[in-house]
């Protein structure tokens, strides 16, 4: 089967006062239909740039993207985007926010059908009781639920998730990962997510694409994640492959942090104190409360 999404030699060059800088250069990635792929890398490595080019929010400098046999030009609702901040319009209720997109995509359907779609997705993400509230009355987690409902309700060819849980506390993040994975399983959407959370990537993805640090970011390593689906957090964390994969990911991220450090140290003469110049060490963002028992159980099984 040919690939559903093809990113070929994707390049993004920004003009800067010091001359053009290639944030992303010759980035190649193919995604199969129904696959969940995660891009992982350090902040500023260009992973969000790749995603926003896919979303059509950022112009492509070179190369191209093919989605379902068609080259992409600009933004369109055939890609459901979940932004890092939920991006809800504050003067509309949750219902109206989702309906804005649904009206746009299903303009041939009658009003009742469209409202049913909105209600269905808001109920599935757990907002059945508060769908007529304004975003200001909802918690951050609930707002992101609306964001997820909005993306899925468009019935898009593809889902794009830009650090969708980055602004949430760890408990809410786990809840929403569960919501997302269940919806994804039902709708069988092809998805590309950007994150820097190693555990999030392992729990959700079929494949993790590690990006080298920008500028000129490209694919560094690709990790296949074969935990059985449907996934359940505890089972995933207790899977014998979980910690080896996790180690591999963290190691990759650390190597790239160090590589960057060497580059900078070489550039600065005499070498500047590492504490001030080097980028912060990779943060796997391990929320302790949930992780600790998992480690324990691993020890027990050994």
């Amino acid at each position, binding site marked *: 089967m040919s690939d559903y999404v093809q990113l070929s030699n994707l390049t993004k060059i920004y003009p800067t006062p010091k001359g053009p800088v290639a944030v992303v250069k010759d980035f190649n990635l193919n995604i199969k239909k129904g696959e969940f792929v995660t891009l992982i890398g350090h902040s500023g490595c260009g992973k969000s740039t790749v995603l926003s080019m896919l*979303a*059509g*929010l950022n112009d492509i400098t070179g190369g191209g993207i093919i989605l379902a046999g068609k080259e992409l030009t600009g*933004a*369109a*609702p055939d*890609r459901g*985007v979940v*932004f890092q*901040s939920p*991006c809800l*319009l*504050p*003067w509309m209720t949750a219902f109206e926010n989702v309906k*804005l*997109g649904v009206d*746009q995509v299903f303009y041939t359907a009658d009003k009742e059908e469209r409202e049913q779609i909105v209600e269905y997705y808001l109920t599935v993400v757990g907002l059945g009781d508060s769908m007529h509230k*304004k*975003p*200001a009355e909802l918690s951050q987690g609930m707002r992101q639920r609306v964001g997820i409902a909005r993306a899925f309700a*468009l019935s898009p060819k593809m889902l794009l998730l830009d650090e969708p849980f980055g602004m949430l506390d760890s408990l809410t993040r786990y809840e929403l990962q569960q919501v997302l994975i269940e919806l994804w399983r039902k709708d069988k959407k092809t998805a590309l997510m950007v994150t820097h959370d190693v555990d999030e990537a392992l729990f959700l993805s079929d494949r993790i694409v590690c990006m080298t640090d920008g500028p000129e970011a490209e694919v560094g390593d690709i990790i296949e994640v074969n935990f059985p689906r449907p996934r359940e957090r505890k089972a995933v964390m207790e899977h014998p492959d979980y910690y080896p994969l996790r180690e591999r990911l963290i190691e990759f991220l650390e190597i790239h942090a160090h590589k960057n450090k060497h580059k900078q140290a070489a550039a600065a003469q005499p070498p500047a104190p590492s504490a001030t110049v080097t980028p912060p060490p990779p943060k796997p963002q391990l929320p302790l409360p949930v992780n600790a028992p998992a480690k324990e159980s691993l020890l027990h099984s050994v």
Partner: protein
Amino acid sequence: MKPFKLDWLILPLIGALVVIGAWHLLAGKKVVVKDAEGNVTSEERVGAIAALPNVKETWESSKPYVMEPFAHRGELDQGILRFTWLSLILVAKGYFIALLIGTPLGFFLGLSKAFTKMTDPIIQVLRPVSPLAWLPLGMVLFLGAGKNASDLAALFTIAICAMWPTVLNTAVGVRAIPQDYLNVAKVLKLSRWKTLTKVMIPATLPYMFTGFRLSLGIAWLVIVAAEMLTGRPGVGGFLWQQYNALIYEQIILCILMIGLVGFVLDRLMSVVERRFKTA
């Protein structure tokens, strides 16, 4: 000072009494001059500011206008509320024109940098021009309108003076629309019209209403100048006429009325404004 019961009422009352007291002390009063036999020869005014009518004189002279606020005794002799009503209608018309022109103009300014660069110097030069300067130009512009010339000139003056806060605030509001909201519109591929009505206008409304409130304040401020120079019936025209007729008491009545109405208008607008303050 510690807050106490009814302080919201008592403290403003004390303030008002102090000001009225000071006015009364400064104002002049009538003194009768008599000759040796006790016959009244003349009357004269004495006091720090002899010509300034005192509280009692102001009240007595204003009584017919206040007690019969809707009386119509002649074109420039009407009850004070009737005058106010006439002024309000004129202001409303001019204000409406200001919003009608100012809001879209502000929107274009917010959307287009080139348009901003093109018109900004003109706006900055025209903005500080006083209504007293605009009115004669208005008269010239509407010279052909004959009998209506002064009305149109007054409307022109109100509209052009009151427009700027709406223009500038709307422009700022459009520039301040969060990129997030525009991205939503882009990703959903909303039509231009839908982007405007569903995203851009609602996002700009709080700024627009701040502009509307400030514009209304200015429109009301301009009315006096416009009516004075055109001689239209209204609080401003009445004020000027009474000054020319040397009836100073009613100048104070008019000032109080203008101030009160301005205050009420501002309060009404801030209630509306608050309703549009979205999160």
